[in-house]
């Protein structure tokens, strides 16, 4: 019985649900569409796993604090304190309360903004040190990058709109062409993976097998 539960039944469920998704896309059958919509909304239930993740996180970092792992335990302790603080604020006052918003606006937003803003410095250093015309390939890369930066910088198109036109032309030709090729590759790979999953040749989603 356990062998049936481990492999054939999950494979059968995958096949039935997968075929439902595929058939619904190609055929207009009301019953099929209704079943598709219902099954689609069931996936919300799977999100309950996030709570298991939180428990796992607390156990992992709780152990580090208990063991006083050198150089780590105080970070773990701080993580637990912050999880508790957010949980208490959210559960007691609600996530749309002013208290919760104060935490978001004064902790999350500045930290997130700082992380993104620090990229400006690294990008400046990276561009200065790496973007050099060492050969034809890097020359072309530098030229296109230079023109795109100029087109993206509001100052330049404000002085001559042609800068924006050049930038848009690069995007509309080279960039779109390249990305379409990537998309086609990803799409074909996705179709192949989907077919292999439907017929039971790809079973990685069922977890590692001994």
């Amino acid at each position, binding site marked *: 019985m356990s062998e049936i539960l481990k492999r054939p039944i999950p494979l059968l469920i995958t096949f039935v649900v997968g075929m439902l998704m595929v058939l619904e*896309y190609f055929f207009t059958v009301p019953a099929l569409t209704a079943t598709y*919509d219902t099954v*689609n*909304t069931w*996936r*919300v239930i*799977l*999100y309950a796993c996030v709570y298991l993740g939180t428990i796992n996180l607390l156990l992992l970092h709780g152990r580090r604090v208990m063991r006083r792992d050198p150089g780590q335990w105080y970070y773990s302790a701080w993580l637990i304190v912050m999880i508790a603080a*957010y949980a208490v604020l*959210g559960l007691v006052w609600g*996530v*749309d309360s002013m208290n*919760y*918003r104060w935490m*978001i*606006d004064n902790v*999350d*937003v*500045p*930290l*997130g*903004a700082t*992380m*993104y*803003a620090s990229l*400006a*410095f690294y*990008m*400046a*250093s990276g*561009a*200065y*040190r790496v*973007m*050099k*015309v*060492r050969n034809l390939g890097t020359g072309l890369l*530098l030229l296109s990058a*230079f023109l795109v*930066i*100029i087109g*993206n*910088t*509001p*100052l330049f*198109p*404000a002085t001559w*709109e042609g800068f*924006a036109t050049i930038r*848009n032309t690069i*995007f*509309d030709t080279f*960039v*779109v062409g390249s*990305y*379409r090729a990537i*998309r086609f590759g990803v799409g074909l790979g996705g179709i192949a993976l989907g077919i292999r999953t439907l017929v039971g040749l790809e079973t990685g989603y069922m977890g590692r097998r001994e």
Partner: protein
Amino acid sequence: MSLWDKLEAVPNWVLYILVLLAMAYPIFRPLGLPIVVGGPSQEAYKAVDATPEGTYAVFHIAYGAGGKPTLQPAAVAMSHHLFEKNLKVIYFCDNAVDLANIWGIFDEVSPDTRYGKEYGSDYVVLSLTGPFLTQAAVVLSNLLETIPTDARGQSLKGMPMFQGYTETEDINIVCQLTTSGDISEGWVYQAVSRYERRLVGGWLSMMTSSMIPYYQAGQIQGFIDGSKGAADYEVLTNKPGEAVKITDILSLTQVVYLLFIIIGNVGYFGKKYMGGGK
């Protein structure tokens, strides 16, 4: 150390100070540079503008804390436009940070006092849980049956804006602002391919190259391209705000980048051809 070596090896701290100055200067002395509105922003504006009054717009906010400085001004400008057009707006997000961002939008837009809009009659906020593609499908196909309450716990079915509401007919346009490639592409799959709605996007500039094929193919009606796109939308709605202020910072900082790329190359070639470099 020769001049060419020095040009090629400017210390990071010098570079960082100059970038910092380029960022800080316009804060104290705004340059007031003119803004040339880009084509995608204009198309996004036209798409929202062409939405019939009284129909529904879904507005997905998904930029978290990191994307807030770039995309919140766009969300504010677009919200002004949605309320001016008398659309019924369904805001939605899937986490507490974006929920706070949405309340922040209302603080700036003041839909109740400025546009005479009422929560529950003209706009609503949903806080959903689940994988994104499912959320999008639920909002566009089966909202009232799947999601009983809004972010405040009030019943959706009891709200005036949902009396006589049918998802398949009433939702006319989907607007989304996100820092996630999966979400921006996911909306193309769900809103455009699956449910045949018009879609307007907005994201960080670095995502534009991966999303522009969808715009060229007509699947995305228009889009907001980072801070510059947000500034464009503020200009188009005649509500200059944070994004317009950021434009000066963007200009000066990128000029510093360009100057240093040139300096680095001058040093490289000088050393190669005149300084005995390899």
